[in-house]
């Protein structure tokens, strides 16, 4: 209660003691922010047609949809399984393609390996562009250009992945220790030799981890892409929904979920194995930070923009791997002096030098080496099988490049004029969808977050149940949720808002739960010792401490959701995606490019704004 300006001796002064806290700058900021959030919520609900009555009604709609879907029927399961396998191969082929194509771009766009200014700018430009266009937009374009089928999906994901992998690979090259590189250069090694012998061994673990992370993202994307005709399980979902056979749709969603969850588990396991096999002081969290930093600056909504789960799985700090042997301290006067002693006498290599013919000339066999080489072989074989399955042949690639060239040519010059009022209106609608979903989603996910924080959860069961709910929720991509909500409540922004709101449980909920777990515990313990109840502890001990973090997560969520909202319209859930889709369907690619550029500018602008806001508050 002591104010910064006055001493505690309240009795002597004439003014009565202060009974409310003074208005500090921080408090005012939060108050203003609260008002702004409330205002935004009201306006956005109005704009997107969300009202309490409609929300309640939608619960009935959802229950209705679920009843129509239940029980799931399995009699087409072989067909879905095939589609699921195709989806998996699509992911492998797309990621493999992206890896192969990303490496040259990464090399050219890393400052320490690029060949010149022009190569640097061109490859950076390509990387930015492939990433700026959401993968689902690429998919629309490819489906138009080369027809319905998995190949379109593979190319779309592959192209979009180049943007991410190329950039992160290049970062890894730039961060690799420069000493060995300089040493090789000083020894007369050529550029390509330096690259292969000096840089490659240093960046490979990072590259592999990043690629696995990209596999996670692509799995989530792939189930969506099918929905616009790019093959795989998503295509099946679109088909059965079109035929209104909802019980089958539930089966398909369930299978999608299984695929996403199992691939995520496998890749998390593999990443962990890679990291623990490393004897370096490199902190695995650096990788995590790198991915996060990358995501923070990610450009307009890729289909999986709200994905957060992949890298979070607790990767322990690097531990000494099997390759470690005990270090011998150099034995003074032992080998060294013997070497020297022999020098003048012999004039050739001394007698103590090891017998030239005797030493092993190949590295000793070790389980680590075996594991490494066998995983590499498996990955390569899997990639080729996948290419074969999805029809990714050199000819296919070449002909699709031609098709892409034609589409690309049709994009210029971008047409900003046609129907600009409509575009503007839909851009605004996109924004309002994101705002409504963020505010409602934060409110909905906060209880989940509190239950899912280990240090606050009232019981083991509540903790487990809440974490599980988040995990399940994360396993269903937002766009699939949007598809289901469109079926339940009809076309329009309302469905989009609902999809993203529910999506927040897995996304913001998990972020908040992790943030709460990291809060300093003494405050909470202190309240326990006072005899406070659980709710009292939450409201007095946890929420005030967590508030800045929660606000920060809210702003971040809004940032991510603006990107996600740009593509909701493709499945009819409101926002700019609808127009985007129709321009592709009518081959008006010049308008497509114009819209993509507008989205890019808007998203980038908001990203800067939200970054600034977060800095102000935290």
């Amino acid at each position, binding site marked *: 209660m002591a104010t910064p300006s006055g001493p505690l001796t309240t009795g002597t002064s004439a003014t009565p003691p202060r009974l409310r806290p003074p208005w500090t700058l921080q408090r005012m900021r939060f108050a203003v922010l609260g008002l702004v959030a409330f205002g935004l919520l009201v306006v956005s609900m109005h704009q997107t047609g969300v009202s309490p009555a409609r929300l309640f009604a939608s619960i009935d709609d959802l229950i209705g949809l679920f009843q129509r879907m239940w029980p799931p029927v399995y009699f087409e399961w072989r067909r879905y399984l095939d589609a699921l396998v195709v989806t998996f191969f699509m992911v492998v082929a797309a990621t493999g393609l992206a890896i192969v194509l990303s490496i040259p771009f990464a090399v050219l766009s890393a400052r320490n390996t690029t060949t010149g200014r022009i190569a640097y700018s061109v490859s950076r430009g390509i990387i930015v562009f492939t990433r700026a266009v959401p993968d689902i937009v690429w998919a629309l374009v490819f489906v138009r250009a080369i027809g319905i089928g998995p190949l379109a999906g593979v190319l779309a994901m592959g192209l979009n992945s180049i943007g991410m992998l190329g950039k992160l690979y290049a970062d890894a090259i730039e961060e690799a220790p420069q000493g060995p590189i300089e040493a090789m250069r000083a020894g007369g090694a050529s550029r390509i030799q330096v690259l292969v012998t*000096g840089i490659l061994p240093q960046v490979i673990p990072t590259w592999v981890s990043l690629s696995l992370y990209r596999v996670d993202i692509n799995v989530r994307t792939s189930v969506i892409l099918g929905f616009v005709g790019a093959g795989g399980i998503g295509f099946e979902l679109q088909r059965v929904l079109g035929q209104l056979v909802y019980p089958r749709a539930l089966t398909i969603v369930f299978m999608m979920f299984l695929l996403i969850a199992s691939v995520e588990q496998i890749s998390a396991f593999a990443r962990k194995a890679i990291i623990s096999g490393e004897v370096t002081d490199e902190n695995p969290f650096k990788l995590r930070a790198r991915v996060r930093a990358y995501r923070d600056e990610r450009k307009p909504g890729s289909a999986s923009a709200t994905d957060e789960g992949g890298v979070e799985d607790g990767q322990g700090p690097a531990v000494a791997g099997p390759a*470690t042997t005990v*270090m011998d301290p150099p034995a003074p006067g032992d080998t*060294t002096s013997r*070497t020297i002693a022999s*020098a003048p006498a012999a004039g050739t290599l001394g007698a103590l030098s*090891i017998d030239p013919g005797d030493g092993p000339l190949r*590295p000793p066999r070790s389980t680590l080496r075996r594991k490494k080489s066998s995983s590499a072989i498996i990955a390569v074989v899997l990639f080729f099988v996948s290419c074969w399955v999805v029809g990714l042949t050199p000819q296919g690639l070449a002909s699709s490049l031609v098709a892409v060239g034609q589409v690309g040519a049709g994009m210029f010059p971008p047409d900003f004029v046609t129907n600009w009022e409509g575009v503007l209106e839909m851009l605004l609608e996109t924004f309002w969808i994101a705002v409504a979903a963020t505010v409602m989603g934060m409110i909905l996910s906060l209880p989940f977050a509190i239950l899912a924080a280990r240090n606050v959860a009232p019981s083991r069961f509540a903790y487990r149940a809440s974490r599980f709910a988040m995990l399940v929720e994360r396993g269903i991509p937002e766009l699939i949720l949007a598809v289901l909500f469109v079926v339940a409540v009809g076309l329009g922004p309302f469905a989009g808002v609902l999809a993203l709101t529910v999506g927040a449980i897995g996304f913001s909920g998990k972020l908040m739960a992790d943030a709460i777990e990291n809060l300093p515990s003494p405050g909470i313990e202190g309240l326990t010792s006072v005899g406070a109840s659980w709710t009292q502890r939450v409201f007095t001990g946890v929420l005030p401490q967590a508030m800045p973090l929660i606000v920060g997560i809210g702003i971040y969520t809004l940032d991510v959701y603006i990107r996600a909202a740009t593509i909701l319209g493709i499945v009819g859930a409101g926002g700019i995606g609808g127009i985007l889709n129709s321009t592709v369907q009518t081959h008006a690619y010049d308008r497509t490019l114009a819209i993509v550029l507008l989205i890019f500018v808007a998203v980038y602008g908001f990203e800067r704004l939200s970054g600034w806001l977060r800095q102000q508050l935290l």
Partner: protein
Amino acid sequence: MKRQSPSKDLLRSRDQQPGSSGDPGTSGAPVSRGETPSVEVRELVKRFDRGRVTALGGVDLAVHPGELLVLVGLSGSGKSTLLRTLNGLETPTSGQISVFGQDPSALGRRDLRRLRHRIGFVFQQFNLVGRVTALENVLSGALGRLKGPRYGVLTYRPQMRREALEQLGRVGLAEKSFQRTDTLSGGQQQRVAIARMLFQKPELVLADEPVASLDPESSRQVMEVLFACCAEDNLTVVCSLHQVDLALGWADRVVGMRAGKIVLDRPVDQLDDASTRAVYEAPGEEQ
């Protein structure tokens, strides 16, 4: 300071070469040999940051074949810059450089590679690839004479591997050949770097404070390995060093630098404590 153990004296193979006319005591014996110098720089100036920092302010120096020259000087006096300019890692602002009769700053990429291959460089920070085996690091010394990229020990011919193992043996690390380099101690890593340099089969060795990040005992050991091997292969050596005494018994000549200029240049026999100390102290009355 002039501590010269008998064993070390015995090892000065250089002094027993015919070239030095059996009179190791004579000052500047190598210099008076009249051969064309391996390295010659004139009026060498190097500025950084658009001329704001002068690292080398007009250096004249000649190093003769087979000579072992030690470069001393305060931190920031320009030792590293001088060494790096000699093999083209830095381009001079002005002045002339000649290494084996060639000017590294004027060479095309391919010729520069060829020249660099004749110059071994030992770095203070070892500059090894930490994740790969010691042998692979040694093998990478041969890249300058190989065509095409190499990845992994098995991409080098067995004969090369055998030779690389020999070099590891010379520095006393034969049994560590397949250990990951970043699990070796600092002194061992620098010895791997020396083996890499030797495997490169250079004619000139530039060593930039090779022991500055090592403890005294490893420092002594590493310097002995470096100098002994270079002496054995009859290499020309320019080595910057903070502890001159580590080079006594090996060095022919000591050159002191201060603020980008050479302030001391004399045969090691004529060296006394005072003149060495002067390099590190008040602005020079030297020369």
